[in-house]
């Protein structure tokens, strides 16, 4: 009987779904004060220092924690808000004093963690110590700004904190504003620390010891994160939106449908084609910002035949179907990095246009000069995790290279294996993307061209002249710095171990009544500036 009545209800339910939902007035109010974001992948930790914390976890951390300093804002070419990497602004620190050997921060006196404990310099030290001691990504990111040892972090008094420099590094202060050096409630964490786990890594995975603008109200791993505003937040202007819900919707088509129907307020994760179509929608705002210091490129393994020959690499660079890629792979949602006036340095910024464009005749001549007039066979690999871009991209490249006698087999590598394959550095040719947080040319080159051979130097490129220039650029300024940058960019264009193709855009689509969106270098959403209505 029970079963029958259940069926009846199901049938009745299916028939009656047209009836209006039973919303109470309070619910409608809640809807107006809540921002619903739909995304593709869920955070895997509440702790940015945790092992393998992913990008969505950075977003949680960014919105729920404070850092000592943050970045200012400017308008970009399209009049949208864009963080300004030249301007550091107060967050927990109200002001700071930099000498050649140290930086001293004055902390806000009335700032409190979510549990009401005042935020003091010992919390800052504990958190910085944690970031340099736990290993993995946080420690490496700290080291990128020469923040390496706990002894560098000094508690002067409750509201004064000092960072001693181990070397003069222009990235030290900017690195204090990135998502990693968050300020955690040290007393609360210590309560949950054990001898085996002195930094309370286990507890912090699922709990917050923070004092940022938003608190996590509910986290259902893999499904949603619900945030509530921390009304007592002192480290910046109080956010306008009271509640933020981040829901995971795995199907891209449904994310678009939710936006178009007005059920969701904002989404990043849509295919380029959808963004280019939504640009014309009267109901939605679409903002595309060029991702700083990032590019999609074709990399060639310089330690293998035939790509050890610079002429072959140049031939490939002259043979890529650049414009076709822009039009039919990216639907115009990217900036070209080809077809510049010449193959030389154009200014201290990165990425920039090189002088290559599609010129099959020139490419053929170079192949002949290199002694490969009869053609070669090779493989072109890509990350299946990013197949929506990579798949059409590699097919176009395959067709184009066939015209100059390079016969390629496309090798699709599952997302989980991609990093491992990159590390082996034995794939002859790949398409890949890389982006660095800190917007300095030498930062990109340090990861991608330097002979230290980091995983992102996917070409295995080693050139002592270039290494010297990169190292010089990292620790100098003025004309000397500019000369070094010019030097390594010219070499990169001439030797083309990687062929820049385009600079991707960070696209976001939102309802017309959502305003205040700001682009951040970490490419995650900052809820604190958003407004609705």
């Amino acid at each position, binding site marked *: 009987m029970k*079963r029958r009545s*259940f*069926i009846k*209800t*199901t049938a009745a*339910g*299916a028939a009656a*779904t*047209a009836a209006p*939902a*039973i919303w109470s007035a309070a*619910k409608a109010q*809640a*809807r107006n004060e*809540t921002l*619903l974001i*739909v995304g593709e992948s869920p955070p*895997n930790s*509440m702790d940015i220092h*945790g*092992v*393998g914390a*992913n990008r969505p976890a950075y977003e949680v951390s960014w919105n729920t924690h404070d850092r000592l300093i943050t970045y200012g804002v400017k308008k970009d070419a399209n009049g949208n808000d864009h963080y300004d990497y030249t301007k550091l602004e107060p967050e927990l620190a109200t002001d700071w004093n930099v000498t050649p050997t140290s930086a001293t921060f004055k902390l806000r006196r009335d700032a409190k963690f979510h549990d009401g404990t005042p935020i003091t310099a010992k919390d800052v030290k504990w958190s910085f110590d944690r970031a340099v001691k736990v*290993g*993995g*990504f946080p420690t*490496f*990111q700290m080291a*990128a700004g020469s923040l390496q040892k706990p002894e560098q972090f000094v508690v002067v008094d409750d509201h004064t904190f000092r960072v001693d420099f181990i070397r003069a590094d222009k990235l030290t202060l900017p690195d204090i504003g990135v998502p990693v050096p968050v300020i955690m409630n040290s007393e609360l964490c210590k309560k949950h620390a054990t001898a085996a786990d002195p930094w309370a890594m286990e507890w912090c995975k*699922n709990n917050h010891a923070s004092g940022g603008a938003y608190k996590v109200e509910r986290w*259902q*791993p*893999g*499904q*949603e994160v619900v945030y509530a505003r921390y009304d007592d937040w002192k480290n910046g202007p109080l956010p306008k939106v009271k509640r933020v*819900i981040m*829901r*995971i*919707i*795995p*199907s891209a*088509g*449904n994310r678009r*449908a*939710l936006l*178009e*129907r007005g059920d*969701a307020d904002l989404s990043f994760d849509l295919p380029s084609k959808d963004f280019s179509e939504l640009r014309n929608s009267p109901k939605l705002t679409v903002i595309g910002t060029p991702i700083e210091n990032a590019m999609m490129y074709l990399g060639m393994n310089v330690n293998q035949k035939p790509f050890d020959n610079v002429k072959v690499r140049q031939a490939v660079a002259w043979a890529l179907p650049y414009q076709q890629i822009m039009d039919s792979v990216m639907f115009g949602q990217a900036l070209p990095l080809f077809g510049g006036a010449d193959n030389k340095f154009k200014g201290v910024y990165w990425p920039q246009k090189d002088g290559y464009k599609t010129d099959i005749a020139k490419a053929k001549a170079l192949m002949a000069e290199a002694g490969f007039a009869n053609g070669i066979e090779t493989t072109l690999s890509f990350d299946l995790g990013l197949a929506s871009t990579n798949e059409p991209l590699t097919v176009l490249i395959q067709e184009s290279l066939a015209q100059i006698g390079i016969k390629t087999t496309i090798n699709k590598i*599952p*997302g*989980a*294996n991609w*990093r*491992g394959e*990159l*590390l082996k550095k034995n794939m002859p040719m790949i398409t890949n993307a890389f982006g660095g*947080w800190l917007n300095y040319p030498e930062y990109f080159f340090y*990861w991608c061209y330097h002979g230290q051979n*980091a*995983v992102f130097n996917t070409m295995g490129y080693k050139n002592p002249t270039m290494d010297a220039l990169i190292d010089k650029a990292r620790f100098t300024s003025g004309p000397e710095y500019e000369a070094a940058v010019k030097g390594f960019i010219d070499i990169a264009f001439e030797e083309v171990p990687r062929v820049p193709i385009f600079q991707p855009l960070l696209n976001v689509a939102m309802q017309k009544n959502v305003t205040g969106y700001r682009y951040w270098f970490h490419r995650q959403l900052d809820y604190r500036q958003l407004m609705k209505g």
Partner: protein
Amino acid sequence: MLKMLLSRLATAIPSLIGVVIVTFMLTRLLPGDPAAYFAGLAASPQAIAEIRTKLGLDKSLPEQFVAYISDLLHGNLGNSLSTGQPVVAEIATRLPASGELTLAALILAVCIAIPLGVLAAVKQGTWIDHLCRIVTTAGVSLPVFFTGLLFAYVFYYLLQIAPAPTGRLDVFLSPPTHITGFYLIDSALTGNLETFWGALRQLALPAISMAIFSLAPLARMTRGSMLSVLGSDFIRTARASGLAPRTVVFTYAFRNAVLPVITTLGMVFSFLLGANVLVETVFAWPGIGLYAVNALITSDYAPVQGFVLTMALLYVALNLAIDCLYGLVDPRVRLDS
């Protein structure tokens, strides 16, 4: 009866041991490197090595296996790296989600398929028989994700009568107090009508798309099995003795025809439970299939092992339940065993 249950359970033990060993080996044989995957943006070989040590992946295979078994005996299936949660807790929250969806779909399918199959067999060659044929052909030839996407497009996007495909509950409703993990049951027990209604609305489209797929084998099996029983001697005898057609069909024929239908039901149920990844993806349903596939994509060993083990346990339980059901339906089976 109890003896039979115990002996059945005992036979399941070797297969469970086999499952444990095979899943452990298989996940290690996969070419992915979880340490490289989870090392993050600034992955230098040193960072990856550190993560490998942290995850215990630098130990030899036998050492890893011993650690795995001892964890298993303590009821610990390890931690998922991609969601950061203990696998046991994750499966405990996701299994009811899949269970609720699968059961709703199956109940719906049974309610349509069995009457349809019986009628098609009784009135062979009439319009209802053709209808049965059309429905079953359509059911198997329309993949679940296709019907799911089509439904979402038509009923949500175009007609706007279905709720947004955002998972088990509307974004602005809170989940009911956890009792069974089945939202419909929990909200009904706590008298939370708004949540019950919300959960039911969310359940409707995915359950219907899955029901369409699963009613095909059930209807065909019912029809086939009814036909063979209706053609047998004892039915002719019953008819000749002047029993009412209703008694002949339901009491005599259907009861005898139902055994293969139950077998199919068991198979369809277990198939749906593990293989409804596509429906879960389309409707953002936080089920166990989606969890396992995401884990596979990221070479996240622990959830994959946990998933396979859970499914193996479920299959054992399901087979046992079906065996018991046979005995209830047909006394001859009970005697045989």
